[in-house]
């Protein structure tokens, strides 16, 4: 440090030396942050000591003393298992939510731009209503005023043998397999690959010859062909089961608990209103000339939207929609307001039972951060791939 002042007189004095000050500033900034962290940590230690509460993660091995509806979780299983079941529920609701919100949001976003006055205004009303109401109110409302108003058990009946709505859960028909589930999964996988290959081949044909590809239909055909062939080879091991009431339990088919349904419904309705706005903005951001050129090429309005406008709009929309996916995942924690046991609810209940608050929340934050990081890196990859197509 002293050499800086002695070597050259042209150098500014120490307190005006840029490099020196940069170092000092950074050291100071780090020191402030570290000091603040240590202060918090020290308080934590003090408080833990005076109140005799544990700070470690030993509680994870203790019995959870809670039950989780819709799972086989047993109250004597440890807290760590409860958290894993909760994580599964978070992923389940967020995954379904992302898919459904994207579909609904895109449809409404497109409807918003329809030349049909009635349709576009209906879409606009939807967006303006749901964007401006707090999500938590939608969650609580959809649980108490919609899904808890489903038919009581004694009034529940099956519609067409496939749909059984009730306040205890809503059952629908579902596919059953025999014990060769693995083989069936392989068949489905092969069929998907076949569909992908067929669609790709048709696109290649279109690129070379210019004749319409109908890639989608070829893909479907290939999928069905491969699937039927594969299943025939296995001797058609697939069946289906319909939901039925057995005492107070819905058996057969697949059952959706009202708590799950309410949270999913609210997340989809709310997020779709945001995605619709993004889709609308992105479509409007596609230069008008693109649409006009497509019209000049005699593409139908459906083709214009599907082949020309949407692919370009997607590129613009991806980062914003990715953000919405992140929000949806984080918002699934609003389940604390109803009785759906995802991560946050499990943590909250286990704290109320006996788990220490600080380690429980630290773990919860860490899990959410990890989820966020994974999701945002997926979005980043998607974004980069779409951007590469451009140039």
């Amino acid at each position, binding site marked *: 440090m002293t050499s800086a002042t002695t070597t050259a007189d042209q150098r500014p004095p120490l307190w005006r030396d*840029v490099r020196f000050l940069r170092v000092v*500033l950074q050291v100071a900034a780090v020191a*402030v942050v570290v000091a603040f962290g240590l202060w918090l940590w020290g308080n934590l230690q003090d408080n833990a000591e005076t*109140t005799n*509460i544990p700070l470690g993660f030993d509680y994870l091995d203790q019995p959870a003393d809670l039950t989780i509806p819709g799972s086989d979780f047993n109250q004597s299983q440890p807290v760590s298992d409860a958290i894993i079941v909760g994580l599964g529920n978070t992923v389940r609701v967020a995954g379904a939510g992302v898919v459904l919100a994207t579909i609904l949001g895109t449809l409404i976003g497109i409807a918003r731009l329809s030349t049909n006055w009635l349709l576009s205004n209906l879409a606009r009303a939807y967006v303006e209503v749901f964007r401006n109401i707090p999500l938590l109110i939608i969650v609580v409302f959809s649980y108490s005023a919609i899904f*808890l108003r489903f038919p009581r058990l004694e009034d529940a009946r099956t519609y067409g043998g496939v749909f059984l709505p009730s306040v205890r859960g809503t059952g629908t028909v579902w596919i059953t397999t025999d014990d060769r589930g693995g083989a069936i999964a392989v068949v489905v996988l092969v069929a998907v690959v076949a569909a992908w290959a067929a669609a790709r081949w048709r696109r290649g044909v279109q690129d070379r010859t210019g004749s319409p590809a109908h890639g989608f239909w070829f893909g479907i055909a290939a999928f069905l062909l491969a699937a039927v062939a594969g299943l025939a080879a296995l001797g058609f091991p697939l069946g289906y089961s319909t939901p039925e009431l057995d005492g*107070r339990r819905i058996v057969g088919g697949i059952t959706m608990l009202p708590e799950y349904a309410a949270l999913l419904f609210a997340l989809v309705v709310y997020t779709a209103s945001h995605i619709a706005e993004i889709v609308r903005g992105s479509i409007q951001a596609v230069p008008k000339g693109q649409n006009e050129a497509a019209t000049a090429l005699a593409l139908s309005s459906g083709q214009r939207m599907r082949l020309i406008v949407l692919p370009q709009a997607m590129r613009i929309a991806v980062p914003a929609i990715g953000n919405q996916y992140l929000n949806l995942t984080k918002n699934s924690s609003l389940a604390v307001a109803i009785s759906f046991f995802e991560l946050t609810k499990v943590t909250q209940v286990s704290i109320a039972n006996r788990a220490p608050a600080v380690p429980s929340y630290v773990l919860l934050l860490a899990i959410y951060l990890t989820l966020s990081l994974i999701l945002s890196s997926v979005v980043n990859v998607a974004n980069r791939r779409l951007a590469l197509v451009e140039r």
Partner: protein
Amino acid sequence: MTDRRTVRWLGAIAVLAMVMAACSDDDDASDTTDPDETEITLIQEGSRLAAIREAGVLKCGTRDALPGFAVLEGSDHVGFDADFCRVIAAAILGDATAVEFVDLETDARFTALQSGEIDVLVRNTTFTAGRDGGEGATFLQPNYYDGQGMMVDADSEFESVADMDGTSICVAAGTTTEGNVASEFERLGLDLIEVLSFGDPAQLQEAFIQGRCDGWSSDTSQLTGFRSEFPDGPDALRILPDVFSKEPLAPAVRDGDTDLAQAVNWAVYATIQAEEFGIDSGNIDDFADSEDPNIRKFLGDDIEEGGTFDPGLDLAADFNKQVISQVGNYAEIFEKHLAPLGLERGENTLWSDGGLLYAPPYR
């Protein structure tokens, strides 16, 4: 170039200055108030009781939505638990109104106690080993002996829990209730579809009404309370005879607050002892010149050798008198808040009547 860099690092200085200013503000603040604060902490470490006296108010953790135990009427907390907060305040501060009620959600109650947000927790909390040991709380003399029961629709076919094979049960989240239900079903060899736990009592009641579950399980006292306020009238619900757990509801203080713990215990004993003596808020003046030396001691009146009896609890000599005259004895508090719900005294009668209420001798 250097100029631009200068700008940047000056910007950084600004940032840092702001950060440091923010922090140093704190430092300054703590510097200036340091002497006082250390004094307070010293007092606190030595005695929570002294800290409460210093503040002139007892911070009591309660809940505002538990019929009979604590509900808000206007801005006033009314109920059995609320009155025990007043009992404690009367004993420590000589003023039953010197209570600051802090309403706590179920999941926040122990944390509030641990972090010192409240002095004492009187919130319908079951005294269990795990809580006494693991939550940094010290449980004291139970003020209500409760047990978990089951409530069902009045016109349902269930006559006892044993009939409830293959049912769904609703409970309030974060209580010992959830585990008890599962254990009881297991013990009886019954199939339990699910236990739904709700954080919000309003939502729980609604789910029950809509037929989300067949049974509503909770401490019997709570069930009675909810039943009395049920929208369709109490007759729409039936409480099954089974009581399948011990739920002693007790006040709790933070681990280490020994002096406060003693004060709370003796405040609760005061209400029991008074009932045993037959002293209540109405007739307490008649006992002013009682001949019974035990009563004279209890009420803090002069005893023969001159002066008053001081057991060394660091409470005023007449704290029992304050408790009884300002709030009442156990029977009065019970009759006022719990009897209207239709609750019987049950185990909560004096030991001399075959109950569990027993106060150690005040001598």
